[in-house]
């Protein structure tokens, strides 16, 4: 018996551990090549956007082409600051997980622009249905990282009462939905939320993010179908970071020319964008938001990026991809690229940057110290045990009351 070569093996990545990174096949188009259509252009007339990568920042770090947004340097600096802070936050949380202070953690290294620029282009009243890898967006919306840490260590200040695994943030005050551990479920929910907004005659739109691997779930199709049928004011983002844990993006993507191209079959605009280009992500999101707010309906955006770190603290990428894959990623580092752009504009300096990096580190250390004063996962204090039986129903029914009593509390 044994090894069979019949049939059609699933696709494999260009290189595995040991081999050199190989992104030759990507054949990325030059940024700036693609036109910026009117935000209300018919989807049928702008299908090209799904096949060529929208970009703004060129190799020299200059903003180029029709998609270049008119963002004040101050706005760019705000974005840069959030990205750097997010990176500092991630680094610290990872370290703390290694020392068992967290049961679990997930970084977003290399994907900071996707989340930060994406949410920066929205209004504060727009609703965000994120996946677990947009912590940058939450920070950018103004979340207190002490609160975020307290959630991650399930202590007495955890707004979620210790019920959720780390990084599954909820923050209603910031129009941030409750992150689910089940992939993709938020995508059609975001469409429903946005339909309600339209039905109430409100201007708020919804935006949601899922990963490339998650596009294979039925909920992706549900969201696209609902959005198309009801012309929902929603922005559906697919973060293509090339990997789904150990599976290369081609396992869920198959022969798809791009994930953005999936929009064509629904009569929805699909835009494929350089996800490591803060300006480009901002520009396409702003375009989609304008479209949605003016009755143009949904847009599917594929942000093309790279997962710089392990999938989570339970993962070991050295088993399935070359060690230096991330360094070889042709689209670079979103932080470095925005930094270079700002410096090119004369609006930033290496010194400013080093100071920023140090300030963020300090801010994170300060926050961590404060978070610990509210307890830890291992030693507590946690939310009182009886809260475990609350919020299952609006009012506690007899069986939960009895179970609580059975536990002797």
């Amino acid at each position, binding site marked *: 018996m044994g090894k069979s070569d019949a049939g059609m093996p699933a696709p494999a990545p260009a290189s595995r551990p040991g081999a050199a990174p190989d992104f030759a096949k990507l054949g990325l188009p030059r940024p700036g090549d693609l036109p910026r259509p009117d935000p209300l252009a018919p989807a049928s007339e702008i299908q090209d956007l799904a096949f060529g990568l929208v970009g703004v920042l060129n190799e020299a770090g200059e903003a180029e082409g029709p998609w270049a947004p008119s963002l004040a340097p101050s706005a760019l600096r705000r974005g840069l600051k959030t990205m750097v802070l997010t990176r500092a936050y991630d680094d610290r949380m990872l370290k703390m997980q290694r020392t068992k202070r967290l049961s679990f953690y997930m970084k977003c290294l290399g994907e900071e622009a996707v989340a930060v620029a994406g949410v920066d282009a929205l209004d504060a009243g727009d609703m965000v249905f994120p996946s677990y890898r947009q912590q940058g967006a939450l920070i950018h919306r103004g979340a207190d990282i002490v609160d975020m840490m307290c959630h991650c260590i399930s202590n007495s200040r955890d707004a979620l009462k210790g019920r959720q695994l780390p990084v599954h943030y909820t923050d209603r005050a910031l129009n941030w939905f*409750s992150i*689910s551990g089940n992939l993709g479920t938020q995508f059609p929910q975001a469409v*429903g939320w946005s339909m309600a907004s339209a039905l109430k005659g409100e201007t708020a739109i919804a935006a949601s993010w899922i990963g490339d691997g998650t596009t294979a779930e*039925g909920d992706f199709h549900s*969201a696209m179908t609902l959005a198309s*049928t009801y012309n929902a004011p929603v922005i559906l983002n697919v973060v293509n970071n090339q990997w789904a844990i150990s599976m290369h993006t081609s396992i869920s993507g198959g022969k798809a020319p791009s994930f953005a191209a999936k929009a064509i079959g629904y009569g929805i605009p699909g835009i494929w964008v350089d996800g490591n280009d803060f300006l480009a992500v901002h520009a396409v999101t702003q375009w989609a938001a304008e479209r949605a707010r003016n009755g143009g309906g949904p847009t599917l955006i594929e942000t093309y990026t790279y997962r710089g770190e392990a999938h989570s603290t339970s993962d070991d990428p050295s088993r399935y991809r070359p060690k230096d894959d991330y360094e070889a990623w042709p689209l670079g580092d979103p932080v470095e690229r925005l930094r270079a752009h700002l410096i090119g504009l004369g609006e930033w300096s290496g010194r400013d940057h080093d100071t920023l990096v140090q300030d963020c580190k300090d801010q994170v250390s300060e926050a961590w110290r404060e978070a610990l004063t509210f307890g830890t996962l291992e030693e507590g204090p946690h939310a009182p045990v009886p809260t475990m039986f609350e919020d*299952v129903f609006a009012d506690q029914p007899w069986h939960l009351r009895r179970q609580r009593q059975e536990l002797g509390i």
Partner: protein
Amino acid sequence: MAQLNMMQALSDAIDTLLSRDEAVVTFGEDVGHFGGVFGVTRGLQDKYGATRVFDAPINEGAIIAMAMGMATNGLRPIAEIQFADYIFPGFDQILSELTRLRYRSAGQYTAPVTIRTPCGGGIYGGQTHSMSPEAFFTHIPGLVVAMPSNPYDAKGLLISCAESDDPALFFEPKRLYNGPFDGDPDKPQASWKDHPKGAVPEGHFTVPIGVADIVRPGNEVTVVAYGTMVHVALAAAQAQGVDAEIIDLRTLIPYDIETVAQSVQKTGRCVILHEAPRTSGFGAELAAQVQEECFYHLEAPIQRVTGWDTPYPHAHEWSYFPGQARVARALKKTVEFA
């Protein structure tokens, strides 16, 4: 008081809800222009417009996810799943999302969604139009599960579910839409016209969630049933001449344990009925709880009369359906047990 059949009572409930609260919307497959394959929403789109009463793509998961998303934005959706047999593409959205949102967000978000779906057999619907899948849903924390047995309860309970802040799954025994059914297929179809529970108040009223109804007081044996089996139980008790106390559970989660336990403590005997397959059916939960609460009082083992552990067949509908003969046999066996 109008005399309504169950479809009219449900339609009346939804109409009442739509008229009282702008936030109420209803949708599902064929629900809009057509008014649903059973006609429950007929006429409502004309009355309330195509943005409050509308058709939905054939994707039960999408329907439930859309309802949940709308509910998190202030609406109170009533989603119809055309047949309970077809709810399973939406099972994950119900189990992982709809019923956990309040808990996992520590109350920051809630999703007051009501899902209506016709269930049960007796219509020669075969294995995909006859299921009674309620048990699956009673094992999901955070979901209200209800099943009325008559037009009055149908309207009152549906209004309660829709006005509740918890997600609710509302089962409609389709065999009862046009009239009560006592399990005898050879009798001409009965009508709600001359049935006391066919008298339904106009406008707003509620039947409380979690409260069972003793539809026949008795002393020999307690019969716990819901939906179509309530009518089968009444006929079987009569036919068998057993002084049964028959309880219409009405709400499965949270179920009315007091009423059930008090009755069993009085009668000392208990028979549980449902159309669904026996193994791990909701009767198992009831039996497990009753034996624990009534151990001292039980004079006979608790019997379950149920559908068989097979898919619902077509030609053998009446060999599958737990009809009067099987219920009567169980009643006899239980009251005579010593």
